[in-house]
Every structure is written in C-alpha cells, then in structure tokens.
C-alpha cells in the first residue's frame, strides 16, 4: 500500500533527481539515480552520498545505562571511550538475532545512542523496553527527528571536510564528533556500510537536506540503495533479514567475534557460548563461480549428487571483482573452504567454490 509508506526528508530531492524509487523497510526509498554500476564505482573510486534517514536512532541514558546496554548488546561497551562507536547485535535468549546495530558512547556521562535498522525500529524499541525492568534508564526513540547521510569513498574525508569547513582527519575509524550543522546538533562518525573509508552524519531533517544539497553541488554522486547492497555485500557485511535474523545467529553467520563471551552477561550469551562450543548445523559461506550466471537470494545450493544443502542469501555479479559471487547458508560440513558446491540457476546447475566471505579488500582508514 503506497499511501502507508513513509518518506524521508529528502524525498522531494530524490523525485527531482529522477530516482527510481521502491519500497524498502516501510519507506519509499531511492534505488538508483543513474545506474547501480556507476554509483557503485563512484563510491569505490571517488565519493558518493546515500540518504539513510530511514535508519533508527534510539537513545538510552540514566544511571544504569552502561549496565543496561551491556545487558541487551552482544559487544562489551565497558572499555568504550566517549566519542567511540561499536558494532554488535541484540540477541534473543536462543541466540537468534533481534537486530545488528551501532552503539555510540556520547560525550555525556551515561548517554548512549543505538543506531538500528529501519525495518526493525519498532520491534527493537519494544524489545529494549521490555528488557529494561530493574534498570534505571530513560529510553527515547528519536528516529523521526533525525535524518542521516552516509558519505562514502576514498575522497569522502576531503569532500565532506570541505563542505563542512572542518578537518575530519582527526576522526578515527569507529569514532565520532558532536558538532553543529546549519545551527542544529550533528553527529559525524567515521563509519559506513560500503567497505570504503567514509562518514555517517546524523542531524535534524532541515540540516540533512542542506548538507545533501551542498554535497551534490560539490559533485558528490547521489547513490541509491541498489549500490548500497552491492557494496556492503562485496565487503562481506551482513544485511539483517538476509544474513542475520531471528533464525540466523551471529555464530551461524560467522560474526561471533562481535559476541563478547568474557562479559559478565548479556541476553543470548549462554546460547551463543553453546553454539560456539558445539558448532551450528548451518553456516554462512561465500561462494564464487567461474560462470557468469548470477546466483540470487533463494536459489538452492546442492551437492554434486543433487542433495540440497542450503540456500543463497545474497548474490550478484560483483561489480568490483567482475565475477559471480554469493553468500549462502549451508550445512556446516558442506561449507568447508575450498569445497565445490552447486547452485541451481534457472534450468541449469553451476559449480561454485566455497571462499572467504570478504570478497573485496576493504579500504578503511584505521
């Protein structure tokens, strides 16, 4: 139902640019402006800007904030310093994934920002609230009040710095500054979802619209969700719903390094510890094909004799690597590195070799 879809503050800009729009996570979002390939390459080689205002911002504060975030989050936030970000998950007691998110430790004692997936904002807020009994915390879902841009690519530091009239070289990877943008509070972090260096900027919608226009005037390429997916996929990053879900735990997806088992407790800890010790029935693998046919989400993965052992979760003909690759969730024993599996694509079956999931060598500035 189109009339029930939400729009971001930049919707009129997308329409004016002639973007191809499509529903995503309850929002009408730009998929592409020129072509996915051109936008993808702009981010890999120059600089692109994404409207990611649909993402959710949930603020947690109060005397028990640190202990509470550590209770619901798979990572350990205790060693974080003010101005630092951390990636991790919220988990169900059985180890399934509620969401993957970024935690920002604000420049105020006992204040944290949780940046969550758009499709999960309501579910996450409910989950956070229902697990807050016994903690003295204030939980505020401020998602509608915040817009967000992702400025990504090797030229991001220089171009965004010029537009903001600020030197961004001092912001380290997974750190942020609190600043002002067109008179509004803004958060600028060195984070992203593309495998390239880049920044994410959070601010009030008016300020985000102003920044968007200034970036386009500085020849930054507007990029849609189409290439956001091809970029994150090549870099081996999961998308909630495809590679992480209530049924796919971080251990199955190969992201157990974000679950800190040396932490006193967190929801899902026991299940994750058990999965790590015993292994899981399924695991997420990378598959690489020699043929040009394209594996798509949902296509079956088989052994040579036709026995089905799994399913493709995301797949493309990789733009940066010029080969057909995919993530697939397969039986653990079938997913050993170097194994040959077979993907059913249309009427044919193609061999594919199990490879590491980070297909593309990321270029983070660390």
């Amino acid at each position, binding site marked *: 139902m189109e009339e029930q879809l939400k729009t971001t503050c930049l919707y009129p800009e997308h329409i004016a640019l002639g973007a191809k729009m499509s529903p995503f996570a309850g929002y009408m979002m730009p*998929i*592409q402006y020129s*072509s*996915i*390939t051109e936008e993808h390459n702009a981010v890999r080689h120059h600089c692109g800007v994404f409207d990611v205002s649909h993402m959710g911002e949930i603020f947690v504060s109060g005397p028990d904030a640190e202990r509470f975030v550590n209770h619901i989050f798979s990572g350990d936030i205790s060693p974080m310093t003010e101005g630092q970000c951390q990636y991790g998950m919220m988990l169900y007691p059985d180890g399934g994934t509620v969401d993957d998110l970024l935690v920002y430790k604000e420049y105020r004692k006992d204040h944290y920002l949780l940046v969550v997936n758009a499709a999960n904002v309501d579910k996450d807020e409910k989950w956070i609230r229902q697990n807050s009994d016994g903690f003295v915390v204030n939980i505020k879902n401020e998602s509608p009040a915040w817009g967000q841009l992702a400025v990504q690519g090797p030229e991001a530091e220089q171009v965004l710095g010029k537009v903001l009239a600020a030197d961004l070289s001092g912001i380290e990877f997974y750190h942020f500054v609190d600043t002002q943008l067109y008179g509004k509070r803004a958060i600028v972090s060195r984070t992203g979802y593309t495998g390239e260096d880049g920044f994410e900027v959070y601010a009030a919608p008016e300020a985000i619209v102003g920044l968007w226009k200034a970036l386009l005037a500085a020849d930054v390429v507007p990029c849609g969700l*189409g290439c956001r997916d*091809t970029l994150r996929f090549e870099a081996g990053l999961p998308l909630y719903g495809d590679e992480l879900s209530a049924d796919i735990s971080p251990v199955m997806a190969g992201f157990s390094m974000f679950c800190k088992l040396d932490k006193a407790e967190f929801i899902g800890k026991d299940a994750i510890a058990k999965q790590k010790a015993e292994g899981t029935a399924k695991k997420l693998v990378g598959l690489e094909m020699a043929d*040009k*046919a*394209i594996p*798509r989400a949902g296509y079956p993965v088989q052994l040579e004799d036709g026995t089905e052992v799994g399913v493709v979760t995301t797949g*493309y*003909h990789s*733009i940066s690597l010029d080969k057909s690759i995919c993530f697939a969730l397969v039986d653990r024993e079938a997913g050993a590195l170097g194994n040959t599996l077979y993907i059913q*694509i*249309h*009427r*044919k079956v193609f061999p594919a070799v199990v490879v590491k999931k980070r297909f593309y060598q990321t270029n983070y500035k660390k």
Partner: protein
Amino acid sequence: MSKIIEGLLYSESHEWVKVDGDVAVIGVSDFAQAEMGDITYVDLPEEGDEFSKEEDFGALESVKASSELYSPVSGKVVAVNAALEDAPELINADPYANWIIKIEMSDKAELDTLLNAAAYAEIAK
C-alpha cells in the same frame, strides 16, 4: 515512450517475434530492456533445445534483478545469438537489432495469439 516496431509480433511478456518462413526470430522489446536497466548477463538456451509456447527459455539479468524470457511460440531452437554472451549490453543498445534466439516453429497457428504493434503499445506503458 518506448520504441515499438511495426510489422513485428509481440507477447504480453514483452518478447518480439519476426516471422521468417517457418522460423521465428525472437528478442525483447524496448520497453522490456528499459524496465530492466543495464543488462549484465543473458542466460541463453542451446541449439536443439525445444520449448513450448510460454515456457521459459532463458533469462535477462541486471545488477539487481533476474527476468525470465518466455518463448512466444513452440518449437526447436535453431540459432542462438552468441554475441550476447560477451556483450549483453547490446540488448540495451538496440533490442530490435539484437535478437536472442531463432526457433523453428512447430505450430505457426500460435502466431495468431500474439499482439500486433498497436495492441502491444497498449500494454507497454
């Protein structure tokens, strides 16, 4: 407004047919290529494969999506445009000059079920 060529026959699934005796030359319409965007791969059948009308004989792939190709007529594949294997973008460049397969028809009466240019123009928008 997409380009539609007079004298060709069209299917509702956006393939075009040029009749050459008993052979149907088959491609996709300008409307179809524009909807797909940049085509990155064409999944082609092999010579000798047999398809019945409306059976899928291959697919067009863009970065984002896969779109199946349906045979407008029944018969046997007698030629495949191998140039599309290395240059799938030819379909974007000129979908009418770059045919995909040629089928030797087993039932020419099936042509009567296809659309002429005027009728196809009604659905290609």
